[in-house]
């Protein structure tokens, strides 16, 4: 075998049984299926390259870290935008911007969110695959019952007060909670909600790379809103992720706060006559409750770990692989994630996908945390824990924000 070996390490799971040989990307469904099919297709189209697909358990960073420490770097790795800075700062990644330019991929083709996710110090550190955000998944059947439909469109709140009022109306009319949330064994959504609604108030979450800025009225308001929702029983409680999904599918509540990756599943359900969502599903970006229309976002990217032993041939294979993926961004976007290329968003093909038109604005409103903030993963956990404690009433909001800030600063100080 004199083919060049390309070691590609990724998450998104394995589905050999279903898609092991599939090269028809259009026929694939779901993150795993589409990813597998694109890679299969790449191999089929590039017979001189052997792709070793190393699938790792989500999110795979423990393993990657161990590999890098053992000088056993793969050629390409899937990485969240929020994590890139950590590896980049330690010199563990190679920039790919120059290389991408040689195959005609330039940063200006990316959406804002995607570009921001891979740009550090003016260099491009990876090829963005997508951006994703939390969305407002709506059960329009229940909304109708609650009298929250106007012109066939759900009425969405425009301020915290409206949110509470509509939620109470919903609750009165349907007897069900307005919001469905995964709050058990789950902190990420707390963090994302918190980030989003603080950002909407135009208050920076971090004053600089080493300092969090959580003891602000804006932060207080964001938590207070969710505390109210919970206190007034306007949300499902004590559901973990699976239970929340099941609950929403079964018509357990009006709005499910979950990410882009569920659009496909719920859309499928809405076509099923037995489902509570039958002909009753719509999805929207988070409503603008405060001054600014922004939504916290993150995204998946391909990055290239630094490896001094990588040969020219291998390097070239990497480039071909990235180029191939860039060309298939539209296929990937069928997962529900936002495309990384502005051109895809503008394409009729993408807009024709269910509900995508309503989501297009995310390309502009999606906002990741500033790139200079490292350790976003552990910070997300800390923020989520403290937010949860405040919302559940285990601590006062101010105490939680103070603890949050102290703990995050502690992490940032010790980098």
């Amino acid at each position, binding site marked *: 075998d004199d083919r060049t070996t390309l070691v590609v390490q990724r998450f998104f799971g394995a589905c050999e049984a279903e898609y092991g040989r599939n090269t028809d990307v259009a026929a694939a469904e779901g993150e795993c299926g589409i990813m597998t099919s694109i890679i299969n297709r790449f191999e089929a189209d590039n017979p001189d390259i052997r792709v070793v697909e190393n699938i790792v358990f989500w999110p795979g*960073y*423990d393993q990657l*870290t*161990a590999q*890098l*420490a053992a000088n056993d770097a793969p050629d390409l790795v899937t990485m969240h935008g929020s994590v890139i800075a*950590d590896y980049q700062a*330690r010199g*563990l990644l190679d920039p790919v911007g120059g290389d991408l330019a040689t195959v005609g991929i330039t940063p200006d083709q990316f959406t804002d969110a995607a570009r921001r996710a891979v740009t550090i110090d003016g260099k491009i550190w990876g090829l963005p695959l997508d951006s994703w955000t939390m969305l407002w998944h709506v059960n329009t059947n229940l909304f109708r019952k609650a009298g929250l439909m106007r012109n066939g469109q759900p009425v969405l709140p425009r301020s915290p007060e409206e949110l509470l009022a509509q939620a109470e109306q919903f609750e009165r009319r349907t007897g069900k909670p307005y919001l469905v949330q995964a*709050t*058990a*064994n*789950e*902190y990420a959504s707390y963090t994302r909600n918190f980030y989003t609604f603080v950002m909407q108030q135009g208050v920076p979450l971090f004053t600089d790379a080493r300092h969090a800025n959580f003891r602000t009225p804006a932060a207080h308001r964001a938590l207070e809103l969710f505390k109210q929702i919970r206190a007034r029983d306007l949300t*499902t*409680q*004590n*559901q*973990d992720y699976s*239970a929340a999904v*099941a*609950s929403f599918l079964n018509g357990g509540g009006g709005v499910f706060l979950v990410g882009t990756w569920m659009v496909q599943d719920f859309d499928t359900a809405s076509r099923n006559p037995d489902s509570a969502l039958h002909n009753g599903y719509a999805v929207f970006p988070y409503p603008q409750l405060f001054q600014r229309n922004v939504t916290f976002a993150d995204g998946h990217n391909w990055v290239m770990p630094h490896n001094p032993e990588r040969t020219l041939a291998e390097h070239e294979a990497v480039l071909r692989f990235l180029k191939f993926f860039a060309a298939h961004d539209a296929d990937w976007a069928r997962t529900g994630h936002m495309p990384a290329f502005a051109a895809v968003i503008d394409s009729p093909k993408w807009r024709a996908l269910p509900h995508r038109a309503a989501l297009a604005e995310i390309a502009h409103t999606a906002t990741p945390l500033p790139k200079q903030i490292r*350790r976003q*993963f*552990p910070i997300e*956990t800390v923020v989520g*824990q403290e937010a*949860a*404690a405040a919302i*559940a009433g*285990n*601590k006062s909001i101010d105490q939680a924000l103070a603890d949050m800030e102290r*703990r995050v600063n*502690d*992490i940032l100080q*010790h*980098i």
Partner: protein
Amino acid sequence: MASLTPRRRRATDWTNALFVLPYLIVFVAMIVVPLAWGMWLSTTKSDLFGTEGFVGLTNFVRLFGDPIFLQTVWNTFYFVLLTVPLLAVLGLALALVLNRQARWAAVLRTIFFASTVLSVTVVTLVWRLVFLPDSGLLSVVTRALGGTPIAFLNDETLAMPAIAITTIWWCIGLPMVLFLAALQQVPRALYEAAALDNASRWRTLTRITLPAIRRTFALVIIIEVILQFQLFGQPQLMTLGGPNNATRPIVLFIYETGWRQWELGYASAAAQVLFAMILIAAMVQYWLSSRREAR
């Protein structure tokens, strides 16, 4: 012993050490050296890719001022207290009842062991489904009985006991098997004598069986203390250490600081503290049991 020629004796003795040598080599390579390495790391500022410098005891000072860490210490102790005595007592009880050749005993032994074969991922997943207040097994039962389901894993005071129950369900096989093996060593004649001495079951247990297997009892306690101090997977997967850090154990803290925050020095320091705690707990137990033996 004046009569023993020293040279000869030493020669014999050194060859005796050959029996333990193979293990000792592995022990030194895989425990002693890494431990020393870890101790050194705990005095540095490092991540997995290198060391920035020696910082002395700074990491330890920071640990003892870190309320989150202190909470994990307490959580860990609490968990050990919840599980270890129960594991030992239940394991012993099971072994006592199931220590016979009968077919039903073999079947029951297998049942009580079966949960041990599952990996922590599956165990926690199943028990999350059990504890879920919304649609979990317990809630279904509670509702059927007319009660209101309790959110075990979302309740600051109930989360740890829920994890303890899960752990006991998962781990009961090992102490049971250890006790079973020990019971095999008790000469049957002793039970016969006790039966003729009209000893009640309880007295046979306390005066014959327990003294005969007390070494194993100590072993089980020590092993379980050590294992349960290293609680990690259950809270990581069931509660993520919450709610409000109520179930965050030391190892989860170590994992998060080391692998997520990349503060290897700090994580190593926490690992050393854990080591010291286990050491003290195990030694106290060992000392207690060997003192009882000496008497």
